[in-house]
């Protein structure tokens, strides 16, 4: 009944019907679940990280904990998950089954090894099974094996470059992604190491080491395993700004394909992540919270956005925002003032509080009319009032070189 917009992309030579891929995580750890995800419309899967170790992976439960206000409890989601409990023997079989069922979709797999032979063995076996892409987890918050035991492999520049080299040597023409952590001193240096190691792309980035919360009555950390807890990998909307910065820094400095991961919860988030340089976007927390059905709005939201903006393909978005990102000393200094959009104001007075106690006392309050009055003399244009306004009735009027610009919140 309505026009269908083509939102397919080319990702490292792989055709994706849309830019949305299920990341290496619980939604891809069972064959039936991954199958259902693909059936629901996700463009591809990266099967949860497997290894060749003979030691069983001992997962511990409860595994999940979250934080956020009532009604939006999963603003941040923490997990103490490890790699898959399924051995490469199982994963090989799954790649074959899924590839046969969904020949048009991307079937990727994530791996983790200790020694060079392990990494390369994993690659060879997956290649033989027909995998489209290999992702290497250098960044499980619970620690890597081998080169950097106890900490994350991607926290070591030398190890990152060396192991990337091993994997790419075995993978040959099969695309390789290295999944990194933002928890490093210099993300650009890590990306350079991945590039030098010969990987095709970088997955930026994994969950972020965190401590989700403490029960203030019992002092048990979240999640509590019979009273004891530890550090979780944090995902969800809470980490999106960190992901944006990680990707933007890599895209600005290193010529490498990026798969965006971490904090995308809607098509808007996905557009933002692509705008700072990602070529596609991986999801995990969103389907874990609301299920695979979320793909429908992701696809339709993106399609409408592209049509409204006049873009041909999602690939047109990639890196669009990079040219506008500058260091602080390079930023311009426009004459900026808050401006009230009178007809939108509902008179809650939150802008007054924000300016009076945390700004520049540039807003006066008229208790009779219940309206704020912005004093242009005192206003420096910090935009704090705009942040607290529940109905977006404040915009920032910016003047520079006789041109006028408005900083507004568009939803």
């Amino acid at each position, binding site marked *: 009944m309505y026009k269908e917009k083509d939102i397919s992309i080319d990702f490292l030579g792989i055709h994706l019907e849309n830019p949305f891929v299920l990341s290496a995580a619980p939604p891809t750890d069972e064959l039936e679940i991954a199958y259902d995800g693909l059936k629901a419309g996700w463009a591809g899967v990266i099967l949860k990280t497997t290894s060749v170790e003979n030691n069983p992976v001992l997962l511990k439960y409860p595994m999940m904990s979250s934080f956020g206000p*009532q009604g939006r409890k999963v603003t941040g989601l923490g997990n103490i998950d490890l790699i898959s409990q399924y051995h490469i023997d199982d994963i090989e079989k799954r790649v074959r089954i899924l590839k046969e069922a969904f020949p048009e979709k991307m079937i990727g797999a994530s791996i983790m090894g200790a020694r060079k032979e392990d990494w390369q063995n994993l690659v060879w076996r997956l290649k033989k099974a027909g995998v489209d892409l290999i992702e290497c987890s250098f960044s499980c918050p619970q620690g890597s094996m081998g080169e950097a035991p106890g900490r994350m492999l991607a926290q070591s520049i030398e190890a990152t470059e060396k192991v990337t080299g091993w994997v790419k040597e075995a993978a040959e023409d099969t695309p390789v992604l290295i999944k990194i952590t933002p928890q490093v001193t210099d993300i650009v240096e890590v990306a350079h190491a991945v590039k030098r190691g010969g990987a095709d792309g970088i997955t930026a980035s994994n969950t972020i080491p965190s401590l989700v919360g403490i029960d203030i009555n019992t002092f048990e950390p979240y999640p509590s395993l019979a009273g004891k807890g530890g550090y979780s990998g944090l995902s969800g909307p809470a980490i999106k700004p960190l992901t944006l910065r990680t990707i933007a820094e890599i895209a600005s400095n290193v010529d490498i394909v990026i798969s965006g991961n971490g904090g995308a919860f809607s098509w808007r988030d996905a557009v933002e992540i692509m705008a700072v340089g990602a070529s596609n976007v991986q999801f995990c927390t969103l389907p874990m919270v609301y299920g695979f059905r979320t793909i429908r709005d992701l696809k339709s939201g993106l399609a409408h956005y592209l049509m409204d903006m006049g873009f041909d393909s999602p690939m047109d978005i990639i890196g669009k925002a990079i040219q506008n990102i500058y260091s602080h000393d390079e930023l311009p200094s426009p004459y900026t003032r808050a401006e009230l959009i009178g007809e939108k104001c*509902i*008179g*809650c007075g*939150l802008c*007054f*509080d924000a300016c009076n106690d945390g700004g520049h006392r540039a807003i006066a*309050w008229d*208790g009779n009319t219940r309206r704020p009055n912005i004093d242009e003399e005192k206003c420096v244009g910090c935009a704090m009032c705009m942040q607290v306004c*529940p109905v977006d009735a404040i915009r920032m009027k910016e003047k520079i070189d006789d041109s006028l610009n408005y900083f507004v919140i568009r939803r």
Partner: protein
Amino acid sequence: MQTTLSREQALLEAERCLYCYDAPCEKACPSAVPVSDFIYSIKTGNLKGAMEIIVEANPLIDICGILCPAFCQDVCTRKQIDSTVRIRALHRYIMENTDMEENLEIPEATKEKVAIVGGGPAGLACARELRMMGYRPYIFEKKKIGGIPAQEVSSARFSEGRADREIGFIKKHFAIDVINKDVDSIDELANGYAAVFISTGLADEQDLGIPREALEGVYKAREILRDIKDGRTSKAGKRVGVIGGGNVAIEVASALKAENPDRDVEVIYRRGMKEIKAFPDEIEEANELGVTFQFMAIPKEIRGTDKVEGIVVTRAHLGEPDESGRRQPEPVPDSDFFIPLDTVVIAVGQKADKVFPGIQRKENGLISVDENMMTSVKGVFAGGDIVRGASTIVECASDGKKAAEKIAKYIEGSVGNV
């Protein structure tokens, strides 16, 4: 009937609060309850802090959480986005999930004795505030302490337990003593009390002023309400007409319908739906119970020989607005009609009784007070319905609270004593 919120519902509802600066809800509340502050405390999970904020603001806060007309909700800023925050339900949620007794700290009662005549909302509020300042309040009450909420509001709307909880709380902690005595002259209190606060409310009910009001089967609304509240079967029959359009009329109609769902209960009102004075919540409740309404009907005469057989009413037409701003009903000529009834309940207003000789009153019988709430007799203060005329619990409690401050200043010598 209002529902009790679960913890999850309360947290979700609290999140809807914008936490307005200079919040209109607080300004609309006669007791100036810091609404946005207590809701903020719900958001952070600090229920005890929320309880302290509201209990300190209003001495009859628990009762208000259920019976207050919620002026705050009418002005909620959130309404401009979608709908008002359910402030009263949040308020009630706190009271149901906290203990007013916890961490209570009351100063020594070392100061003068003050007599409070009338143990309703205004009197109880005054007692609590005086006691918190170290005075020794004695409450004189001829019936059951707690005023209209305890004596007349139906148990279905406001359970005995809830009434007893808060009234008992005030009685236990804030009144030095409650004396079960009918005081009708200030002279009885001349000795030993540094000041007197009269808060006797409106004891009498107004008549309709039409023929045969004394007939068997004609009752006043509040006597019916008291009967039901005290657990007695009301004297009403099978076909009841309630005359009036105020909160008491709706209340008695609901109580009679709830008492016997087979009984026909019709509210007979001179004006239209728009002019009705009762609060929308109460009308909705009456509707749900099955109370019916006869609008635009002016009572002309009650018919019957030994007992009520019905009422003759005249069809009304609404004319010019009166001083209340509502359009005045005018009779339509030759439009009388008869409504067969076996019971007529009159709920057309309350009036002051004629006790306390020597205290100056207005024409309508209400006590006159100055800006310090003091009557024509030095040291005798008054507040609540006996000064305001029929009003709400929250307004009366607010009066009691203000009167306590004035009384304290008077005793200290800075008000009305120079």
